[in-house]
């Protein structure tokens, strides 16, 4: 038997699942596709009751079962059941009461996909901490979703109002801004999407994103609605990142740090703006290949720097090196380079990122510091020497005087008294000589304005030789002078004369007995630096034993009675004062060679 719906439609012919059930949910009639919709085949035993078909009937529908009379209005409910294929399906079930048939038309709509989508959206909203809100401007009612309440840290039964809602926004710019936006949106329509700080019911400050929109009816806003998202974590991280980025940017900009990024595989080198400033290179002129960087490196540092890059790529060492570059204007800069190598999953180096810092000023300061340290060390050495002179020469002579005067007073023998007086005179002379020498040393060391000038080397040497002519003639050495006629050195004339005199008289004094003394004086200039050497065939010096104290005060090395141990000390001080160097090479019985080096004054000044 087939049932007609209305007057003309046969239910069995309907192309969707529809059935007629009584109040016990017994299936009385159904469309042909009805059971097929639930996966039943024609040969299957078909259930007669809705409960057998879909399982448990929702509680909201169970009232029908107990009520014999039909409901007046349709009723709908979502139901889930496990299909014959084992799948969980969701349906919207609608029951239409039909008084004429004393039953209900039952209609099914498969909403499984919609349900899945809805569940996902709920889950996403929960995960993303997104809540919704709505203001009914007509009835002045406010709705907050559970998540919106959770974000505000209020209980689920909290009833918001518009003013209360606004008051959650942090007092000041945030509250003023949301009031402005709400007011403007209500007045003019449109929407807003901004970030604010709220203070929750528990007093916690929280960053939120508030999106709002209006519904306009007859030109008037009737509803304001939107979503509310807790973005506190990400916002704070973002602020922190921004602060760090700003600091980094300020640090990078102010400290002259250039950042580079080298794509090893494709040989592409990218520089930031600071790098171009650092290297004094125009962006347009930079090819973006590593060779462009190579060409800027100082030739003396190039091989070492490339080696450092290679070793970093090979994973042998971190790239952390210093090198010099030559800028386009020819100036030299000291660069400190740091870099990190990035590798693919097979450990192949694919990229290198790093920073370059101009450390020229640090280098310069470092050099100055070293010079200062050097000077301080020299001054300390001088102080030690002064301590030595006071302790040794002054005290030894003064103690001699003390002893001798005591003995003079005790002894009445005129002969002995005469001898003591003679010894007192010698000690007194020595004391005087020591004071004179001390004065000379102090003069050299404390004169800040020594008069540096160009001094003719050969002329000065000739003058010195003439001054000791009698002594030279007495010993009659072979003196070989190999000095360019016009060679000049930049120094202090009296110091240079004094040094020449000291070295020549040392050669005369420490000659080997029975061997004719030979002295060779050579002088030449190379790259603006002048070198003068005094070579003799005398007794020489045991350098292993005395090398470190050769230029110390009152150091003598031959046991010679004439040796005072002051000459080389004064010469060394004079050379230091002229920023020149003195060096000695010698072996016992093989003579000695003293080398004086006067640097190019142009380079010294720079």
């Amino acid at each position, binding site marked *: 038997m087939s049932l007609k719906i209305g007057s003309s439609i046969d239910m069995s012919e309907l192309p969707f699942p529809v059935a007629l059930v009584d109040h016990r949910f017994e299936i009385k009639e159904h469309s042909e596709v009805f059971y097929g919709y639930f996966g039943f085949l024609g040969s299957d035993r078909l259930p007669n009751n809705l409960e057998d078909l879909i399982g448990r009937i929702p509680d909201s529908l169970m009232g029908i079962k107990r009520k014999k009379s039909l409901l007046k209005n349709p009723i709908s409910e979502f139901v889930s059941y496990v299909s014959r294929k084992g799948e969980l399906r969701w349906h919207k079930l609608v029951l239409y009461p039909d008084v004429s048939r004393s039953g209900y038309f039952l209609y099914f709509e498969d909403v499984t996909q919609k349900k899945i989508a809805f569940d996902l959206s709920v889950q996403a909203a929960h995960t993303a901490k997104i809540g919704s809100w709505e203001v009914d401007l007509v009835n002045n009612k406010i709705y907050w979703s559970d998540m919106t309440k959770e974000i505000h840290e209020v209980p689920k039964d909290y009833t918001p109002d518009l003013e209360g809602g606004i008051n959650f926004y942090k007092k000041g710019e945030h509250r003023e801004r949301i009031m402005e936006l709400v007011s403007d949106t209500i007045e003019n329509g449109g929407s807003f999407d901004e970030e604010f700080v709220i203070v929750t019911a528990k007093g916690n400050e929280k960053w939120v994103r508030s999106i709002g929109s209006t519904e306009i009816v007859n030109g008037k806003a009737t509803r304001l609605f939107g979503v509310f998202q807790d973005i506190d974590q990400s916002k704070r991280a973002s602020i922190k990142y921004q602060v760090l980025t700003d600091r980094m940017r300020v640090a990078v900009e102010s400290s002259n740090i250039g950042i580079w990024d080298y794509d090893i595989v494709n040989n592409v080198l990218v520089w930031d703006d600071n790098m171009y400033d650092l290297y004094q290179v125009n962006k347009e002129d930079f090819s973006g290949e590593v060779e462009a960087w190579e060409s800027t490196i100082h030739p003396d540092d190039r091989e070492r720097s490339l080696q450092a890059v290679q070793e970093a790529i090979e994973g042998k060492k971190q790239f952390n090196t210093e090198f010099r570059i030559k800028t386009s204007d020819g100036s030299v800069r000291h660069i400190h380079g740091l870099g990190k190598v990035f590798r693919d999953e097979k450990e192949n180096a694919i990229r290198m990122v790093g920073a370059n810092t101009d450390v020229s000023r640090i280098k310069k300061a470092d050099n100055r510091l070293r010079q200062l340290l050097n000077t301080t060390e020299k001054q300390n050495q001088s102080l030690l020497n002064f*301590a*030595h002179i006071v*302790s*040794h020469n002054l*005290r*030894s002579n003064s*103690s*001699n005087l*003390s*002893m*001798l005067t*005591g*003995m003079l007073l005790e002894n009445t023998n005129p002969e*002995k008294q005469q001898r*003591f007086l003679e*010894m007192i005179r*010698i*000690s007194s002379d*020595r004391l005087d000589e020591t004071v004179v020498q001390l004065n000379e040393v102090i003069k050299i060391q404390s004169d800040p304005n020594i008069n540096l000038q160009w001094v003719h080397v050969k002329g000065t040497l000739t003058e010195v030789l003439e001054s000791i002519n009698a002594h030279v003639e007495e010993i009659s050495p072979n003196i070989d002078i190999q000095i360019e006629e016009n060679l000049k050195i930049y120094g202090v004339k009296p110091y240079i004369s004094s040094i020449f005199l000291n070295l020549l008289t040392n050669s005369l004094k420490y000659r080997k007995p029975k061997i004719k003394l030979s002295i060779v004086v050579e002088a030449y200039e190379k790259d603006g630096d002048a070198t003068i050497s005094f070579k003799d065939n005398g007794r020489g010096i045991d350098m292993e034993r005395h090398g470190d104290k050769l230029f110390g005060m*009152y*150091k*003598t*090395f*031959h*046991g010679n009675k004439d*040796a005072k*141990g002051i000459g080389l000390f004064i010469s060394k001080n004079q050379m230091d004062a002229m920023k020149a160097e003195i060096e000695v090479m010698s072996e016992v019985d093989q003579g000695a060679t003293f080398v004086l080096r006067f640097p190019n004054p142009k380079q010294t000044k720079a």
Partner: protein
Amino acid sequence: MKTKKVFLVDDDFIFREAAEVLITSSGLTDEVLHFENGLEAYNRLVELSETPEHLPEIMLLDINMPVMNGWELLEELRQVKSVVRDSIQIHILTSSIAPEDLNLSKEYEFIDGYITKPLTRADLKKLSRSTVAEE
């Protein structure tokens, strides 16, 4: 009591001459041998180490001297026969008042005293007493 032999090692001939007068007049000894530097004294001590009875009883040793200074001589003495160190009272006699010299002298266990110049009769009396005590 004038049986002692004194080695006076100092590069200053004025001091040596004055010290000798003082030593002999104090009655410590009549035999003062002069050495201008450490090396001269060392060579003589090595010679005498074969006949220890001829070693000096006292050596007055200056520190700052050319060729071989007092410290260098002391280092060399560490290497010679122990009889040399054991037989001689070694006293540093120097014009140095630097504390580091005094401290350094304490590192030599065979040094018996440290005298700061000028040498006085009081110093020599102490020396005389200490040598008598040893005998």
